[in-house]
């Protein structure tokens, strides 16, 4: 939303993913690192055991662009399958999505289920995830049972077909040398993948890279 009266650009970013994957940890790290004058309170609607019940919310000011204050509202959703009704509510009017996947091999099924759930919930609102700002974060890269990135990419970010011929040109991945976000695969069709980031959210690795990437995509989508 662009508010010309208060000269503000407000955007909503939602962190999605399976339970205990690190969504809240991402927000807590951002909260702890940005200057107090550029962020609001971190609100957590959580159970007594600190599992997210409804959402976490953190407003962050990124700076000024063309005289407009850019404010990002970061939300997490509850990861547990049980809470789908409240999870879906948070997606309403979202501008950008971060999928926080759990790298542990035994969480692959939970990752896939959550990704499918994300596509389903977006589609119920009439939003096309492949056409909007969307990045994937593979969290917990430090754990010994973390699956290889190639396996995670193959399962969670295999790419979607690019139908528009105008977009049939190689688009290098700015975050990974030698890889492409848009490319022609062996079958001949063109596919596009979401940008991905490796992270260890608990000590902050990759948290700001992810946030920067999705925020930039959101602002460029407005341009």
């Amino acid at each position, binding site marked *: *939303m662009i508010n010309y009266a*208060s000269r503000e650009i407000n955007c909503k970013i939602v962190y999605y993913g399976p339970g205990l994957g690190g969504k809240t940890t991402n927000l807590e790290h951002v909260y702890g690192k940005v200057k107090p004058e550029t962020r609001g309170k971190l609100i957590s609607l959580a159970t007594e055991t600190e599992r997210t019940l409804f959402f976490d*919310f953190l*407003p962050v000011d*990124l*700076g000024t662009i063309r005289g407009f204050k850019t404010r990002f509202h970061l939300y997490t959703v509850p990861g547990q399958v049980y809470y789908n009704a409240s999870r879906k509510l948070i997606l309403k009017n*979202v501008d950008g999505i971060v999928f926080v996947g759990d790298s542990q091999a035994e969480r692959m099924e939970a990752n896939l289920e959550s990704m499918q759930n994300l596509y389903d919930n977006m589609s119920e609102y009439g939003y096309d995830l492949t056409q909007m700002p969307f990045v994937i974060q593979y969290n917990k890269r430090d754990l010994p049972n973390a699956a290889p990135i190639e396996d995670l990419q193959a399962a969670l970010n295999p790419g979607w077909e690019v139908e528009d011929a105008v977009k049939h040109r190689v688009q290098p991945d700015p975050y990974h040398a030698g890889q492409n976000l848009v490319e022609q695969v062996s079958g001949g069709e063109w596919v596009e993948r979401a940008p991905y980031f490796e992270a260890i959210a608990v000590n902050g690795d990759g948290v700001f890279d992810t946030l920067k990437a999705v925020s*930039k995509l959101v602002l*460029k989508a*407005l341009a």
Partner: protein
Amino acid sequence: MTAGTANWSFTQDDFTSITESLTRFLGETKSLCALLVDRSGQLVTTVGEAPGLDTTTFASLTAADYSANDQLAKLVGETDFASLFHQGEKGSIYVADIARRLLLVIIFDSRTTVGLVRLRMKDEIEELTLLIDRVFSRGRGGAEPGGHHLLEGADDEIDKLFNW
């Protein structure tokens, strides 16, 4: 299917009209403060006095509260609950839907009654609905009234924002 979510922009003229309307409403009902919040939880504007209120958090929680109640309404076979009322010992809030896009939140205390707020609310909703329909009829978010896009060609500036 749309590519993204509904974007919209809000001009100085919209702001002036909405502020005038809400100021009149606050005076007539002796309420403290009115907040206009979009359904995604972003604050559009505040009119009146709300000392110490964290309006950003308030807006976000209001939208979540209203959305949750919307779903509760559906579970009991209603399309929606057109308004919500939360009564406190000193302060109370009344939340109403505007054109299925925005929420109007009125904060009031014992200087008035929920009956008076509710009574005047119907006319206020009609007035604001007309104003808001005008905002949304202008179309996509980035466009200023003249059709110019605020962030067009701003890629460099956007990149600079992220030089943390």
